[in-house]
């Protein structure tokens, strides 16, 4: 019989090493995963709280809002309202996993299998992460960002920097490129470029240029609206990008700050699009690894039962009328779908052959799954692979709530032959970030007139912006733009539903 990895609940660093080696053997040989090098760090509860408040990253620039989140988490943790995660994993190379010191040896095995191999494989192979994130550069970039923000605070004052960051944070969810451009983000090069640009500016600085009389400005009216919009790259849905490139009165360092916030938002964008898949992958991987370790006799029956207890808690899906229900649990849905795919590949029924002719009965479970993990995001994954059997099993149904409808909320489709496709389409749409976020874009700037910035919110299904918040965000936007900003909510027929106009606040005199 193979040697046990550990006995009981205690572990030390040799145990962790053995566990990691054992998991790695299963992950690479049996599952054929392809992972970044792993770095495993053991941390305390306080350090976990620290990590929470800086969106899980090991280093981040300083900002009061992180302090607020820290105070909030700390208070609820101390009162016992909130438990802490067993681990946090960072999409970087090497892939860093933080493990809590309180975990038992079984839990450490579980989270190593889950994070260091499951998430890690997903980060390295999924097309969204490949396209949008630079795992090699992110830690260096965050380091650069931290130092840059610090330098700005020294040079331009904390208040100024804070105001710019506040505004940038408010627009963060609209600082994302949703479609790939021509070139991949290379954060290291970005960092170098920013340095070079500053250096160049300092080298060629000559105060005389300021005194040279400018020639007669070109007649702006000659530029047609069409051409103007083209020059500004309009319409533009990445508001932070637009401000960084086109806001008339921002200082270079402010543009750089907007750029930093934008890059960080972009870095996290794939994660919000792949919650179900990411957790599903990691959960499936840890389940396979733990089962294998148990089969090999490397963990005891008792430890395996402990694992099953936690695993069952993680993949628990309350039903809609359960007081604990708060939407679909991404772990549960993801894991159920992965297992369902395994079933379809190895042991399909006639229905599966009809719905999934490509994979049914193919018998290469890992091959199919690896391909799925690499090439889909939540929306397309659910749209393609949610099977009728799983819909029946979870007893899914679709509700349509139209406030105009007097009779109440209509049950639009249920888990039957007529409803499968509609339920699936609707669930997939619920996981489409592009559909969930408000669709706001810059459509025009009145350059020849009062330089008013005009944005449109394309209202879908009558869902308009929350007024208080919208005004506050627009205030931030106007402060950066430094001229009036108008936001017009239009429905699909271009009918104007509501219009906001916000003027920038005067900048208070710099505090010495």
């Amino acid at each position, binding site marked *: 019989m193979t040697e046990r990895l550990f006995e009981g609940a205690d572990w030390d*660093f040799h145990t962790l*090493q053995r566990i*990691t080696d054992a998991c790695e053997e299963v992950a690479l040989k049996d599952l054929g995963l392809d992972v970044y*090098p792993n*770095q495993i760090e*053991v*941390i*305390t509860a306080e*350090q976990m709280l620290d990590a929470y408040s800086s969106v899980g990253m090991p280093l981040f620039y*300083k*900002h*009061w809002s992180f*302090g*607020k989140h*820290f*105070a*909030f988490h700390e*208070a609820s943790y101390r009162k016992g309202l909130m438990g802490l995660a067993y681990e946090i994993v960072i999409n970087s190379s090497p892939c860093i996993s933080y493990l809590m*010191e309180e975990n038992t040896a079984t839990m450490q095995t579980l989270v190593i299998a889950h994070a260091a191999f499951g998430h890690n494989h997903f980060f390295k192979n999924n097309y969204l992460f490949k396209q949008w994130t630079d795992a090699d550069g992110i830690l260096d970039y965050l380091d650069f960002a931290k130092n840059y923000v610090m330098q700005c605070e020294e040079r331009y004052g904390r208040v100024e920097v804070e105001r710019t960051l506040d505004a940038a*944070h408010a627009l*963060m969810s609209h600082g994302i490129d949703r479609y790939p451009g021509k070139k991949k983000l290379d954060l290291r090069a970005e960092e170098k470029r920013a340095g070079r640009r500053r250096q160049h500016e300092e080298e060629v600085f000559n105060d005389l240029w300021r005194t040279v009389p400018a020639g007669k400005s070109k007649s702006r009216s000659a530029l047609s609206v069409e051409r103007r919009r083209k020059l500004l790259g309009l319409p533009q849905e990445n508001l932070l990008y637009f401000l960084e490139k086109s806001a008339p009165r921002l200082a270079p360092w402010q543009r750089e700050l907007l750029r930093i916030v934008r890059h960080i938002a972009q870095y996290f964008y794939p994660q919000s699009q792949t919650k179900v898949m990411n957790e599903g992958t990691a959960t499936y991987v840890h389940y396979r690894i733990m089962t294998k370790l148990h089969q090999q006799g490397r963990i005891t029956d008792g430890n395996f039962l402990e694992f099953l207890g936690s695993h069952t808690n993680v993949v628990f899906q*309350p*039903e*809609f*009328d*359960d*007081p604990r*229900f708060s939407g*679909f649990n991404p772990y549960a849905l993801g894991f159920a779908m992965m297992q369902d795919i395994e079933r379809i590949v190895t042991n399909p029924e006639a229905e599966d052959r009809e719905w999934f002719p490509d994979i049914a009965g193919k018998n290469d479970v890992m091959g199919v799954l690896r391909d799925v993990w690499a090439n889909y995001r939540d929306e397309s994954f659910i749209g393609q692979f949610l099977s009728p059997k799983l819909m029946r099993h979870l*007893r*899914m*149904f*679709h*509700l*349509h*709530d139209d*406030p105009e409808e007097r*009779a*109440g909320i*209509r*049950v*639009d*489709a*249920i888990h*039957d032959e*007529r409803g499968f496709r509609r339920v699936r389409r*609707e669930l997939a*749409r*619920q996981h489409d970030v592009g559909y969930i976020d*408000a669709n*706001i874009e810059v459509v025009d700037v009145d350059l020849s007139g009062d330089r008013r910035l005009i944005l449109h919110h394309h209202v879908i299904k*009558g*869902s308009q*912006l*929350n007024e208080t*918040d*919208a005004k*506050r*965000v627009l205030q*931030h936007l106007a402060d950066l733009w430094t001229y009036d900003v108008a936001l017009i909510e239009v429905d699909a027929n271009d009918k104007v539903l509501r219009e906001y106009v916000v003027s920038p606040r005067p900048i208070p005199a710099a505090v010495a």
Partner: protein
Amino acid sequence: MPIHIIDRRLNPGGKSLENRQRFLRRAKSLVQGAVKKTSQERDIKDVLEGGEVTIPLDGMHEPRFRREGGTRDMVLPGNKKFIEGDYLQRSGQGSAKDSGPGEGDSEDAFRFVLSRDEFVDLFLDDLELPDLAKRKIAQTESEGIQRAGYTTSGSPANISVSRTVKLALARRIALKRPRKDEIEELEAAIAACTDEDEREVLLARLEKLQAKTKRIPFIDPLDIRYRRYEKVPRPVAQAVMFCLMDVSGSMSEHMKDLAKRFYMLLYVFLKRRYKHVEIVFIRHTDRAEEVDEQTFFYGPASGGTLVSSALQAMHEIVRERFNPSDWNIYAAQASDGDNSYSDGELTGMLLTDKILPVCQFFAYLEVGESGGSAFDLSDSSLWTLYERLRNGGAPLSMRKVSERSEIFPVFHDLFQRRETAQEKAAP
């Protein structure tokens, strides 16, 4: 593939401290308001504890574009009896409604925990203390170093020779290391020996002894002991703080609040200086009684005003429970200044003869209504009396206070006295 396992637990903590301070700075006025409210509700002894405060989230809000309303579609698990085309009553479907994407911002009020230092800082800020004073208050108690036995590790400078030699001796005896005179004796015997065979035997014995001497060192690293030192808080004396207050009808809530703040501050000062601080509350109308804090500040009372009764009570308590040679006695009296005319002389006598000689510090705080200018016009009877005593050389600290920010200057005298007291105590 190399795997790095790193123990981060020993990294310095408080990584979020800076962010937390920024947050507190930004929310300063709100947090300060909360602290002020909390400290009003607290007992004097609890003023130094940190604690949970709740602030409104206004200004701390992080806005985002959020959508709400409109028609909504959702897919839910756990269908039991619905079929396509059913209608569900809205009111009855609470759970389905709550789970919609509209749920966002429920943190209107924000609760979090302030540490002890943060709380005291904000509390003192509220009193508008000058920076110098704040530093003095914030000073933590110094720790002394004291010998505490021996240890097997330490710096060479701390080797305890006598203990090391003692242990080495014990070990040598226990292991039967041959002594020097034993060997010398044997050598002498060999030199004196004439018989070849016996000489051979003796030589063998000598060799054995010498080998044993080599095996068992004179001083082994095992024997070495270092002096161990331990940090101990400096022994500090105990103090008792007498709070005297006039609770007759003329004292308003505002006045009592001023007095309470003054007592709190005095308590903070004393607590920083003495390990053990007792508080005695004596309230008086025309007679005095020792009461608990609740009654002191909030208990109803009525009657005339005889200050001497309180002084007399204090004097008796001191005599019974607080021997001035064991206790540092601090007293703070708050009053609106009224006193019966007939009582003046007795009060003065008690104060100069009985109270002041045993007190480290006696502060008199005359509290007035907020913005009350009338009370500047003429001095009250008590004020006149105390002023006369002070001019006569009595160590009294006295102030008129009608706003919170005026409380602190009373403590100037206290600081001066502390400096000299420390110098005296130093040798």
